[in-house]
């Protein structure tokens, strides 16, 4: 990342032409066929998952637009649109988490940490990747238990429409599992990458 794009990301709130540019995903280390294979497979999965995520965002916007039109032009009650949009956007958010991570798109406060000497910095990066992977693995595990509980006990949302809650929980579980695998892979890449970079 250039300092400029780094700073753009570090604002964390905005989207701009500059912020829209996607850099390339982190490369896999050479001479490590297992890690390279998992890396290539994850890239394919992440790219494939991105298509429904992109469509889900547009579909959510369409749902809410339909909601306005239905209420004022068709005079029909609107009860499912908001929740459908929520499910679509929750799904798009969690399922694209790994894709965003593959571009190192989840931003952190790098300003002070980068003052460390290269060797210490390498350890720092490995530790933060491992802690991130551990947290996401925990989150994925709890998402799966939440999904199974909602599925078996038939949990539904409290609205009049009352859709089953296992749907967003499943999307959350799948997305965070993929993210945990992505972070585990990045930790492995970091661990075997012996080259010390400034």
């Amino acid at each position, binding site marked *: 990342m250039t300092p400029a794009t780094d700073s753009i990301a570090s604002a964390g709130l*905005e989207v701009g032409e500059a912020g829209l540019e996607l850099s390339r995903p982190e490369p896999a280390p050479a001479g490590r066929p297992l890690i390279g294979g998992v890396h290539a497979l994850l890239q394919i999965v992440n790219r494939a998952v991105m298509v429904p995520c992109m469509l889900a965002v547009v579909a959510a916007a369409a749902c809410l637009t339909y909601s306005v039109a239905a209420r004022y032009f068709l005079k029909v009650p609107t009860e499912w649109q908001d929740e459908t949009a929520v499910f679509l956007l929750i799904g798009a958010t969690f399922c694209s988490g790994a894709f965003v991570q593959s571009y190192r798109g989840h931003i952190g406060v790098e300003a002070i940490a980068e003052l460390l000497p290269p060797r210490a910095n390498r350890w*720092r990066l490995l530790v933060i990747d491992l802690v991130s992977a551990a947290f996401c693995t925990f989150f994925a595990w709890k998402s799966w238990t939440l999904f199974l509980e909602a599925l078996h006990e038939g949990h539904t949302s409290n609205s009049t429409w009352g859709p089953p809650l296992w749907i967003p929980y499943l999307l959350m579980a799948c997305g965070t599992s993929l993210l945990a695998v992505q972070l585990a892979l990045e930790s492995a890449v970091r661990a075997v990458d012996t080259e010390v970079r400034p």
Partner: protein
Amino acid sequence: MTGSTGIAFGAVTLLVMFSGMPIAFALGAVAVGFMAVFMPASALDTVTQNVYEEMASITLLSIPLFILKGAAIGRSPAGKDLYSAMHAWMNRIPGGLGIANVFACALFAAMSGSSPATCSAIGSAGIPEMRERGYSPGFAAGIIAAGGTLGILLPPSITMILYAVAAEQSLGRLFLAGIGPGLLLVALFAGYAVYRYRKEYAAAHAMHQQGGSRSALLDDRRYTWPERVEMLPRVLPFVILLIGVMVALYGGYATPSETAGLGAILALLLIAVVYRIWKPKQLRPILAGTIKESTMLMFIIGMSLLYSYVMSSLHISQDAAHAVVAMQLPKWLLLAAVLGMVVVLGFFLPPVSIILMTAPIILPPLKAAGFDLIWFGVVMTIVMEMGLIHPPVGLNIFVIKNIAPDIPLRSVIWGVLPFVALMLLAIVLMCFVPGIATGLPDVVMGATR
């Protein structure tokens, strides 16, 4: 016990944040770690449910849709066209080019809701034009950097959505409250543009009189009426979109989240019709950019909410808030201290985290001191706007460096400083006349007091 827990919570948060760990995972890991140590084991079973329940609000989830709208407009040539039209219509006013840039930034910011997108879209056309016309590079950069910040003040503003959720205030009221101060800043920026133009013009004139080279500032560029009218058809649809969305929101036709969806769909339709951007290959970067930005943000938001939940469950936020109230600081000193803290946090953290992490601590004392939380939301947003253009982070400064790399960073920073001072002036004015922010929502939606 609670005091030491709070100190440990704050210290661990700082350590983990400054390790460079992604903010979302850092907040989540700290929250889960403290849940594991200080809360019953069963609390850990509800982590994901907590995050889901906090995030599954259509108000919060309108953020990806506002980002989509901004990305669609930001990726199209709408910014350049808007700028050209403003320039053609205002060039007869002394300093009109600078004013045109401020107005174009304000309009584009309101359409896209994004500061960097505004800087990038208006600045890529406006900065070269201003420099060609003899404006000093720092002045040109300052106008665009400052104009771009209006993106988080004028509705729809993602910062305000988060504040409305964190402070449990009406989003519609907050959006309206941003308009008065937004217009005040536009007026202050435009006024400064005229003053600075006159100063630079006088200097260039004096230099030419003394036999020096003739600055381009002294040249006159005129547009004919047909030239001016010709520029409107591409701009008007976007202005109509801006007005239409506001009418839908405040006319009671749509909720803020429905407005986000409607705005996104209309923006996609407009770029398809006006700029022929409709093929999947053209739309992919817009959608991928939207996902990249919104996912990063929504993860931070989700985990910030979990973090706040843990802070509240451990009574850390309540105790911190009580401690601040117990200090019995004079009202305005309290405000200055809180805003000072926001400025310092802004050096390191994005506004989303600042709002969600600090709201439970700072809002109760402010409310107890008699501040209107809608008014404070606007003031806090302006302070965070300042963070976009002052060092060390100054996001917009770096956007300007990207689009005009030959302007030295020093010139850009000197160029933006007068605008930081103008924003401070706006805050002072709002302290004396709170109605600048609260007047419009009171008129449109009725007074709450």
